[in-house]
């Protein structure tokens, strides 16, 4: 009897999970559906069945170059992630393994910068970028994306590192490993699952970042977010083309996310299940 109840409960939860997942995924699904409609179909109203035309994709390709913003997105997201790791591995190491009284405060302060609305610093950042000639440059944007995601990367790595027993690092120290030897040969290999999922998440965050990437670029360094935005502008609203551009922009990261979902989930629940 108890078993029947629990089966029913499991079924209920499964259905609820599917409904929630569908609700979350629906905007993306509808974007993809709309991208296979003609412009007239797209403005006619709600419909889940597209005519299946690919004219929007052809239009998008002929109007704008997809490859360049795509490469920019790749360079910016991967570049900013690597740079963030370079800074955050030692930072998280020091906070996890030789904390001081102020460590918690520093961590909270870092997180608090994420609570500040980005638009509040738009003008000063814009001016700084202008004065240093960083506007519309990949270098400037890589740096910007690094700074934006650094608090999250440090927090995540800090959490993973905390799971690693300090005695193992002490053993490495006794065994003659230098500070960098300890980080490179012992800490990093042990933290690979954590570092990998942090990297994945950071790449996704950087790929999707649309506030700074749109405002600090024009053409040269513009990533896919700017590519999408450029379809929503002057000529009026072309839903199908906009959807096609969006689909093209999110496809790579969606595919990457799909293939690495196990790694991502494992990373995000690292502290919880061990």
């Amino acid at each position, binding site marked *: 009897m108890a078993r029947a109840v629990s089966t029913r409960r499991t079924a209920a939860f499964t259905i609820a999970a599917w409904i929630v997942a569908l609700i979350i995924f629906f905007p993306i699904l509808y974007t993809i559906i709309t991208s296979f409609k003609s412009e007239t179909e797209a403005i006619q109203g709600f419909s889940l069945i597209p005519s299946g035309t690919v004219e929007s994709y052809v239009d998008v390709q002929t109007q704008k170059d997809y490859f360049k913003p795509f490469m920019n997105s790749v360079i910016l997201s991967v570049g900013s992630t690597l740079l963030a790791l370079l800074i955050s591995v030692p930072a998280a190491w020091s906070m996890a393994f030789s904390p001081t009284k102020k460590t918690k405060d520093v961590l909270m302060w870092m997180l608090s910068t994420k609570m500040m609305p980005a638009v509040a610093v738009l003008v000063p950042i814009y001016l700084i970028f202008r004065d240093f000639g960083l506007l519309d440059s990949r270098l400037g944007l890589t740096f910007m994306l690094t700074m934006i995601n650094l608090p999250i990367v440090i927090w995540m790595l800090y959490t993973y590192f905390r799971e690693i027993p300090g005695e193992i690092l*002490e053993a490495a120290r006794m065994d*003659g490993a230098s500070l960098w030897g300890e980080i490179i040969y012992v800490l990093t290999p042990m933290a690979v699952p954590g570092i990998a999922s942090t990297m994945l998440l950071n790449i996704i965050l950087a790929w999707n970042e649309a506030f700074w990437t749109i405002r600090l670029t024009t053409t040269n360094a513009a990533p896919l977010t700017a590519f999408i935005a450029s379809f929503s502008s002057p000529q009026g609203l072309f839903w199908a083309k906009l959807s096609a551009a969006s689909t093209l922009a999110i496809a790579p990261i969606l595919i990457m996310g799909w293939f690495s979902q196990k790694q991502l989930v494992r990373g995000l629940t690292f502290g919880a299940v061990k």
Partner: protein
Amino acid sequence: MGNITLRKVNKSFGATQVIPGIDLNIEDGEFVVFVGPSGCGKSTLLRLIAGLEDTTSGTIEIDGRDVTGAAPAKRGLAMVFQSYALYPHMSVRNNIAFPLKMAKLDHGAIDKKVTEAARVLNLTNYLDRRPGQLSGGQRQRVAIGRAIVREPSAFLFDEPLSNLDAALRGTMRLEISELHHQLQTTMIYVTHDQVEAMTMADKIVVLNAGNIEQVGSPLDLYHRPDNLFVAGFIGSPRMNFATGEFSRPYNAHTIGVRPEHLQLSTQSGTWRGVVGVAEHLGSDTFLHIHVEGIGLVTARVGGDFAVSHGDHVFLTPDEGRVHRFNDKGLAIR
């Protein structure tokens, strides 16, 4: 060589003083055990010697060289941790080879030393496994292997056997003692288990609240404890203590009698008591006897001593085996 000298070593964590100031000399080749209850500072003291903690004041010398400020790796010591602290992502071979790789030895020399250590520790068949695939005892042997390949001037053991089951603990205790005889290298061993201390040590250092209570050979501490703490800590079961009218005939504030130094009789004796719980170990029986005015007294009798719960018995301390202490808890000799 592995002569270690501590001079006025003091360690505080913030306002908390863990070790108020310790002077200690450890001779080359000695097996020294730091023993004491949890939180007595024995592990901290070991970590100070290892260099994993910085001393607040005082100096540490190894073979006459002041290493107080030296990094752990520069002290020529090897440590075996309670949790083994093996590198989980490396094979047994690489775990043992790690300190040699860090010392930048060439491949041939590393291979030779690893093979030799594996042979000594019976790990030859496990060299390509990961620590996760080994049993507790094997992991502990890998940790020891990683320590011996470095040929350190002294080994530091931080409660290395406390994660093992009782049977394995006994075996590993013998293996470590045997290793000490083979290598003749200084070993400092931290434990809260006085049986380990008694069976393995050349010299026991009894610690309490960061202070050294007594230093001596196991039998020295057993026969001639300096104070109540050492008397109570060394020996199993614990020494029985009595004060007042019981200690007055001995001219002492407190007297202590070990369970094995009490004669039992059902007819006559000095103290009269009622038998409580009897623990039968086969060879011995530990009787817990209620004696009015003292409380629970433990006596060790032969395995076949026939008494049962509620019986009246008489206890007589062996003359000459009674330990006397003054009102400060110090031994009167």
